């Protein structure tokens, strides 16, 4: 696998507990890579490390900077005072505002441009957060449970569209159908690391 971004011996611990222990991993330049594993095995921590939000105790990330990543948090973090469209125009430069309908179509949220987050269901809010993340100009998309609260057929349709993105997508999921539809699955089960 020819890596765009290489994680070399990443080590992160919280107190005495090592969440990532000399974790090495390469991200290809395209496609969807799914991270799976039990809770607390370090999936979210890995995404936060790549986004530059979590300091490392050891190891390094090569081939990319945190400024080139876009992170979808585990929680939606929508702004209650901004409409659906404004959530996207807030992160897009003015020259790219024409991309808003395409982004909404990608997450199947067309017709909701003027809705406020309070008028959206949980799944719709999640899709808006996903669209906002994808609106960012990034070389690596980090999606933490992007399909939480989204019905499976729709999640699989969106996943197929994510495969067409010009940048690689590293996503966390517990859903077997999503994992089997992803191009590559990396299982984090604490050290040692298993790949399949």
């Amino acid at each position, binding site marked *: 696998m020819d890596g765009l971004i290489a994680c070399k011996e990443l080590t992160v611990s919280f107190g005495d507990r090592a969440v990532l222990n000399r974790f090495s991993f390469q991200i290809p330049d395209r496609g969807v890579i799914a991270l799976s594993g039990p809770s607390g095995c370090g999936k979210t921590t890995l995404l936060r490390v790549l986004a530059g*939000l979590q300091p490392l105790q050891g190891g390094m990330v090569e081939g990319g900077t945190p400024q080139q990543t*876009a992170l979808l948090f585990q*929680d939606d*973090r929508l*702004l209650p005072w901004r409409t659906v469209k404004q959530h996207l125009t*807030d992160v897009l430069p003015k020259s790219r505002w*024409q991309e808003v309908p395409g982004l909404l179509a990608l997450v199947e949220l067309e017709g909701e*441009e003027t809705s406020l987050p309070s008028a959206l269901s949980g799944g719709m809010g999640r899709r808006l957060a996903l669209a906002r993340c994808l609106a960012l100009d990034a070389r690596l998309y980090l999606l933490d449970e992007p399909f939480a609260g989204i019905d499976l057929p729709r999640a699989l349709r969106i996943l197929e569209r994510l495969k067409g993105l010009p940048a690689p997508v590293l996503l966390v999921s517990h859903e077997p159908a999503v994992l089997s539809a992803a191009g590559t699955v990396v299982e984090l089960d604490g050290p040692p690391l298993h790949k399949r």
Partner: protein
Amino acid sequence: MGWASVPSGPVRFPPQRGKDGTNRKRNLPLKRLLYALPAPAFWLGVWQVCAFLVDRHVNGRGNELLLPYPLSVWNAFVSMAGSGVFWSAVLASLGRIALGLACGTLLGALLAVLTCASRWADRLLSPAIRVVRAAPVASFILLVLLWTGRNRVPAVIAALMVLPVVWGSLSQGIHAVDKKLLELARCCRFSGRKTLCLIYLPSLRPHILSALTTAAGLAWKSGVAAEVLCLPEPSLGQRIYYTKYYLDIPELFAWTAVAVTLSMALEHILRACLARWGRGWTV
């Protein structure tokens, strides 16, 4: 990825309609009036009854000295409102107190930002602001009277009373801004201005509203108290002082009602401005 364009537009909510299909908004002013009227009507009634009871127990003008009838106060107000002195006093007081409120709010907001941004600024300034908050207003009035001209005292006092309130409320608000949203702003690579407009200001809005409404009332109370003690020319406080001098109690009640009405109007205007301002935040 190629995206097609979409027409942009403001947020629209469907109009609220009653069971008969008519627009409910049309009946809103009447409903508001029906909700608002009973309480003042009740207290006017209580006042009238109390004045009547006082009237029965005293003779001659004694009633006018202790508790005048609402009608006497109304008559005093009508005769005052017809004179130029009334309007010049009202406008001068309004100007002084509004100036004090604006300066106090601005300074309080700046100090809140400073003390939240720097631990050293917080250590240095917070005790001083707390002293200002706790010190008796009368002491400040006398000190400021000694240090500046009497015409400046009401504005300075209003600003001094408003500053700690705004500082306290905004400091609390700044500390309470959702850290997760600030992390989001960092990840979305928002500029400082964007973070201010999209996250800080909307999050602080309830704190600003609460601070300003409390501060407006406080500015009036302290400003008029300063006017009564310093007698700037012309002023509402000076007129109140004269009513005490001539024992013109109906006029004292009328001036007090004017001060209360102006304070409430100022608070209402501030609320309306802030509601508009909140809707208009853009980046």
